[in-house]
């Protein structure tokens, strides 16, 4: 692994076309009589090849926003366009297709299939994309190699370290060549050294032209991104480039 590049020398790549556009998005949760406003009206535009960090205190709505951006959840109200398509009005299967083709989601808790080895886990999105076994195998192997796990393809999650599991999860997010990679606290469960390794991997992906959105509550992690959005009580508090 190469040491992290010093912040001053980092490139800010020119952004591409608009991928995500949300406007006045709210999300309510009903808990008995009580209504929780997880998001109170969030508007945001994200372009291709941006590297974005979402920050905010616990309970500010980061995960809620992330799930919505990742088409895992739909907003209570507001507009969400993904590459010009209206997501808010999509049915379950359309959302599934978007998740499959356009989005690579890296979960804080990895969410790997415990009974399947690394390769099978990474192949999963390709199965649902309907690719033939041969192609799946090749692409999944390549994805695992790209995250440095070429020698761990047949390990099950419980035979891998935390950092390795997270890298399997990243390989799975990358494997179907999504438009955008979303990572919710990707280093939350890892020690700081492993965390740094993961962030280097993200830096690499960014340099290769990927679009990245990373949720974190650690300033040091957020500073790897090129743009930081701060949430508070379900609203955007600030949105700007990393100084």
């Amino acid at each position, binding site marked *: 692994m190469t040491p992290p590049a010093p912040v001053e020398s980092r490139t800010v790549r020119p952004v591409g076309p608009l991928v995500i556009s949300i406007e006045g998005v709210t999300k309510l949760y009903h808990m008995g009589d009580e209504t929780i406003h997880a998001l109170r009206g969030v508007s945001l535009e994200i372009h291709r090849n941006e590297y974005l960090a979402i920050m905010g205190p616990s309970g500010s709505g980061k995960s809620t926003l992330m*799930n919505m951006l*990742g088409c*895992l*959840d739909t907003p209570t109200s507001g507009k969400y366009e993904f590459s010009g398509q209206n997501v808010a009005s999509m049915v*379950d*299967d359309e959302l*599934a*297709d978007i*998740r*499959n*083709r356009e989005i690579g*989601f890296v*979960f804080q808790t990895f*969410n*790997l*299939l415990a*009974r399947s080895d690394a390769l099978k886990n990474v192949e*999963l*999105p390709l*199965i*649902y*994309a309907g690719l033939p*076994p041969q192609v799946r195998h090749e692409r999944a192997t390549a994805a695992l190699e790209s995250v440095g796990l070429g020698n761990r393809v047949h390990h099950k999650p419980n035979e891998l370290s935390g950092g390795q599991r997270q890298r399997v999860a990243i390989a*799975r997010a990358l494997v*179907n060549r999504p438009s955008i990679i979303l990572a919710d606290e990707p280093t939350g469960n890892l020690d700081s050294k492993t965390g740094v390794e993961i962030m280097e991997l993200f830096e690499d992906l960014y340099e290769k032209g990927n679009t990245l959105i990373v949720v974190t509550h650690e300033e040091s992690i957020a500073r790897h991104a090129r743009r930081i959005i701060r949430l508070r009580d379900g609203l955007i508090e600030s949105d700007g480039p990393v100084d």
Partner: protein
Amino acid sequence: MNEILKMAFGALGVNKLRSILTMSGITIGVFSVIGVMTAVSALRGSIETGLSFLGSNTFQFAKWPTGITGSGTDWQKIEARKRITFQQAERYAEIMKPYAEVVCFKVFNNDSLVQATAGGHKTTPGVTFGGTNEYFLIANQYSIEAGRNFTGGDVDMVRPVCIIGQDISSKLFPAQNPIGKTLKANGRTYMVIGTFAAKGTMFGQSEDDIIMIPISRYLMDFGAERYSVNITTQAPSQIAYNATMDEGISAMRVCRGLRPEQDNDFEVYSNDSLIAAFAKIADVISAGAFIISAIALLAAGVGIMNIMLVSVTERTKEIGVRKAVGARKVVILTQFLVESVVLSVTGGLFGIVLGTLAGDGLAMFLKVSIVFPWGWALTGVIVCSVIGVVFGLYPAWKASSLDPIDALRFE
């Protein structure tokens, strides 16, 4: 499809014991119906094709009904019947002469086990031993291998001669020509005039383990008052069968001295009535097996549903992951449906194999030819698939409509 099946077997393999226990319900249900159906069709096949203890177009009169009778038989009434005497039988044959030539009389040993001996050789006890006339061959589909058949003269002259089956011949006269030799049966001596050609077995009983002597001799040697004669009449053709039977019944009534208002005091039976009686019993057994299997399968289906619901709950997180990376509803639905169908059909296949083995085991025990019940097996597979789908549908639907976020959050 291949992929989905592999996945289903993989998932079921994780909880082998649980899968096997769930399957066993289906196995038992299928086993009982397939076992019974195999046994019944083996028996039915052998009865209908090889109904060889009665010749074609024949009917019989006897004091006693055959072993196969429905319930409601008035045994007291039958007990009270007078036996059919040799004189009545001869008179019957006389009256029937214009209508049917072949009228076979039979009496069989019905008490102690008969053992035959000859020159130091012995048969096993339990030989079929009886008296008959020259029509025994036609009426019972035997044929002569060597020597000669009985003649009217043998009966009229009460000759101490016998015709023996191949089992007897090989035991008493190994590597010799039995014709002209004598044997002892039930303490009396008879000369062998012929051998029957081998016939094989019927319901586990060898038909070649037989010694027949002229009926007149039999009644003389062992007491005419102790036996009731069975009369088998063969109609000259299929077309004349019903008419001949009508003639036969009235002739028999005359011989028995019945007044018009009296009921027949003898049993009439034919191949058809035997087949029908067997079919009736087979139907009752089949219906019983059906009810048992239906209940077992229903219970097993509920078991499958229960296990699938447990499985869906246990694998909520997995479902969440699959949905998060883009599995459509129908894919998840199919995955779980295939699992429940695999569970059910695998159980069913075991049931079919075990049931066929059991049914054919019984068939082999009874020495009838074995069968593979293709129709029932196919029905079994279809029914199991339907059970798998029906009872797997709700759990599968439940899995497919889980919300991905909720599923991922599930602990």
